[in-house]
């Protein structure tokens, strides 16, 4: 196989993911409605109760809406990454994954292409959300939008890999719903997405430690700084390292036999 064949395969996978996404309008709608509800309803209610002091990377006092915007962007990416891996478990059980695996190209390349496609979709959703967020006065410099793109992509790649890693560990679709509850919500709530960690430290030290060890907190901080054209070096290295670990684990531990074998065993009992 030559490099052109790899290119056609990669573009084919990306194109299909994008086509599927736009065919499923409810998916696009729910991807945007969820964070917008948080931004408009939750943040409006809490802005009075939760004042945010001057902190990095903000040079002045900011509204609560502004504070939670990076967290909500990461929430979009988290949901998209997990939804994509949910679809992988579904595809594996329903058989569509077999089609992908019938390709004469190496399996890690196929899965990597799928992860990149998922990350690009996340990027698209985040920018649509940021555009809508302007309506509730979440203004970001034009340069900030550009600076955030690589950060969003890296975060999306990490969370997509994490989703794929989880889908490898899950034998059946029914188990995935439980894992979603044990992964998405703890990751989101036990992070700096909704409140700064120093506030958490005031409330409970052990909760603070959990948040501090949660890689999702670093995703949020990486994006928060990037939107203000700054680099949070610690956050970058944590997210980068986590991405390398999760993606390598996900790509090389993938087994198409896992779901179908269980189904076959069930039918034979």
């Amino acid at each position: 196989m030559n490099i052109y064949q790899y290119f056609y395969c990669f573009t084919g996978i990306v194109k299909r993911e994008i086509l599927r996404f736009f065919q499923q309008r409810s998916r696009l709608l729910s991807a945007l409605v969820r964070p917008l509800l948080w931004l408009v309803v939750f943040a409006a209610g809490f802005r009075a109760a939760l004042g945010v002091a001057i902190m990095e990377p903000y040079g002045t006092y900011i509204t609560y809406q502004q504070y939670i915007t990076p967290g909500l962007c990461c929430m979009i990416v988290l949901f998209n990454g997990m939804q994509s891996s949910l679809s992988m478990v579904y595809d594996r059980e329903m058989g569509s994954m077999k089609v992908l695996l019938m390709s004469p190209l190496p399996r890690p390349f196929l899965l990597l292409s799928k992860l990149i496609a998922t990350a690009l979709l996340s990027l698209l959703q985040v920018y649509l959300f940021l555009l809508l967020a302007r309506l509730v006065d979440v203004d970001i410099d034009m340069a900030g939008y550009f600076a955030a793109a690589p950060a969003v992509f890296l975060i999306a790649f990490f969370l997509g890999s994490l989703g794929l890693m989880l889908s490898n560990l899950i034998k059946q679709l029914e188990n995935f719903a439980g894992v979603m509850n044990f992964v998405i919500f703890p990751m989101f709530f036990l992070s700096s997405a909704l409140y700064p960690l120093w506030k958490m430290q005031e409330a409970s030290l052990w909760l603070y430690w959990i948040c501090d060890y949660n890689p999702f907190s670093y995703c949020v901080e990486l994006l928060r700084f990037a939107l203000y054209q700054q680099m949070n070096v610690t956050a970058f290295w944590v997210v980068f390292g986590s991405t390398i670990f999760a993606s390598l684990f996900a790509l090389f531990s993938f087994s198409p036999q896992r779901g179908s074998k269980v189904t076959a065993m069930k039918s034979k009992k």
Partner: protein
Amino acid sequence: MTIVVKQLYFNYGKKAALKGVSFSLSAGFNVLLGPNGAGKSTLFSLLTGLYQPSSGEIIINGYDLLKSKLAIMRNVGVVFQQATLDLDLSIRQNLLYHASLHGIAPNQALHNIERILTQLKLQTRLDDKVRSLNGGHRRRVEIARALIHQPKVLLLDEATVGLDTESRALIIEHVRDLCQQLDICVLWTTHLMDEVTAQDQLIIINEGEVQAQGVTSDLCQTHQVENVYQLYYALTHHKGLV
């Protein structure tokens, strides 16, 4: 020989699904016949490299499947028992996606798609959503998809499951025609005996073991039975389905 299987074993946990299966197939229409639970789908998953055998050897077009899976997949087309098309995409989009998975350039892929769809009499429905197609047409699209990259081997796992008698007859006729036109090796897996003709190369499998292999008419003669129904009953003690 195009496909050679030697002493293939496979277990689901402690339960043996295949117990030393061996056979060889050449170009032409070959039927793998067996009752439900005989091990056909397991064998199919092994032939497509989705499962790893417990032991044994699979050689396709001269390549060992365990060592050269990617080289083999370039020349193998597969139709799975489960429907695997994307219902929300059109026939064109589904087929272009599959062509891309084989590294085929879009222009070349479109050329191949038009040719195959013409052979399968679906050329006017290129832009129809798969969701709008009936079961028979969806199956034909799956067959077209398996042929886009011009494989030398076509594997079909119960490709007519869930279809009415008329659609079944049409599908099998199309595949037989394609087999002749393209001079490829077709392995047609089924549990339905009316899909077998006297001239087909037949493999009968039951409880994970090959019971017989040869031309259907020769096997009938050897076992002193009149037709495939009696042959099947004699070898498997299953009455079988039509």
